[in-house]
């Protein structure tokens, strides 16, 4: 849920349930890279509660939109990572039969 002021949509804090450093740190990194962001950070109010607060302050755009864009960017980055990784595995497997002799020596 979003905690912000009624008239100023540029800055607000988003409280997300069931999340921890895994997502929050990644989103904070992607948010920082966006030139529309003036300030961003995250905090975990209490380690026993599964809640994380992400603070976004922008240079004019509504904070909610900037956060959504950052999440979209993170999704696209993940898809690209997956695609590159799959290609790399296929290439590695394709080259392996050619170097099978060397690999056997290195295998335990």
């Amino acid at each position, binding site marked *: 849920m979003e905690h912000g002021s009624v008239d100023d949509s540029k800055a607000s804090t988003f409280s997300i349930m069931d999340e921890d450093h*895994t*997502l929050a740190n990644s989103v904070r990194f992607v948010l*920082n890279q966006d030139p529309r962001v003036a300030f961003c950070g995250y905090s975990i109010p209490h380690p026993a509660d599964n809640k994380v607060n992400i603070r976004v302050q922008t240079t004019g755009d509504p904070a909610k939109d900037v956060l959504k864009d950052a999440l979209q960017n993170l999704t696209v980055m993940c898809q*690209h*990572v*997956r695609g590159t990784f799959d290609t790399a595995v296929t290439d590695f497997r394709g080259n392996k039969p050619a170097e099978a002799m060397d690999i056997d020596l290195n295998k335990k």
Partner: protein
Amino acid sequence: MPKKGAKKAKEMDDVPDQQEKKLPDYLELQRTRVACKADAPIHTQGFQYSGAYAAMGVDNSMSVEKFRKNFKIEINRLTEDDMEFDMIGVDASIANAFRRILIAEVPTMAIEKIFMVDNTSVIADEVLSHRLGLIPLDADPRRFDYMSENDVPNERNTIVYKLHVSCEKGSQRITVKSGELEWLPEGSQLNMSSPAQSGDKQKTFTSFSQSQKEIYEKPLGVKFKDITIARLGPGQAIELEAHAVKGVGKAHAKWSPVATAWYRMLPEVVLLKEIEGDDAEELVKKCPVKVFDIEDLGNGGKRAVVAKPRACTLCRECVMCPTGEHIELRRVRDHFIFTIESTGAMPPEVLFTEAVKILEEKCERVIAELS
């Protein structure tokens, strides 16, 4: 010299070849390397803020296109059980997110409920159950569903195993290994209530509508058959039925699909000054992982060169000796050497793909919550 507050648009008119303004070398070093000094590392925080160098007219922002251009993966080793690969162009927060998800949030199957019929061994019921839970199972968790409190155990969410061992009186002690766990593809064989009415079908603890042999082509046994579960002396016996369900490492470590997963940053070793002669020999001898090597110069002189910087473990032996001021140890901030060791349920490359998928799902869940 850096202009204060200069916009990129104005720069384009000045510079004919439209090159981006670059940072001075020492700042570029600060931005891309962690310097590991003799006592502690410095510049550990990255400069991620898009406006960090705005005063100098350098744009630090990064878009998805730039990420796509710079991102690379190089695989070094890929076997059935473990893999090592290099991830270049990504930040520590994302690499750490993948590591955390691999350890705690990729689901697996593990034994959860034990129905104990007979246990006359010296191992207590709960200790035996705990050990059984930690045994890795050879089942692909993507083909199973989660089971919640109200669900009936059926062939889509439970795997049933039986263990029935006994040691005869007068014989030697035997060791019960994990290979003795027998997979029951038809479901539970224990009857729930005593046979009060004389019907042909007894109610068991699971309701399998079809045999699991037809659904899953290969047998869902244990991955390693030589794990010691218990030891039985003469006259002792263990008879139990175990039910395995799907879960994540966050709930209990038995559901973690990796033995472990870790990453380290690529080390960079730089010699600021030439190290020659006996000093070079000493340096080569000091390093326990043979990072340095001797290069013979023409007239009988010797020089130390950096042969294998990747092997550096940051023991700092080389910087603590007298020639230490001329050596700089650094870590490249966006180059990660990832190692994943799987326990066997899924091969390591599948595990990494699943972990990335889970991060995507998390993002989508938050996007849905925001809209």
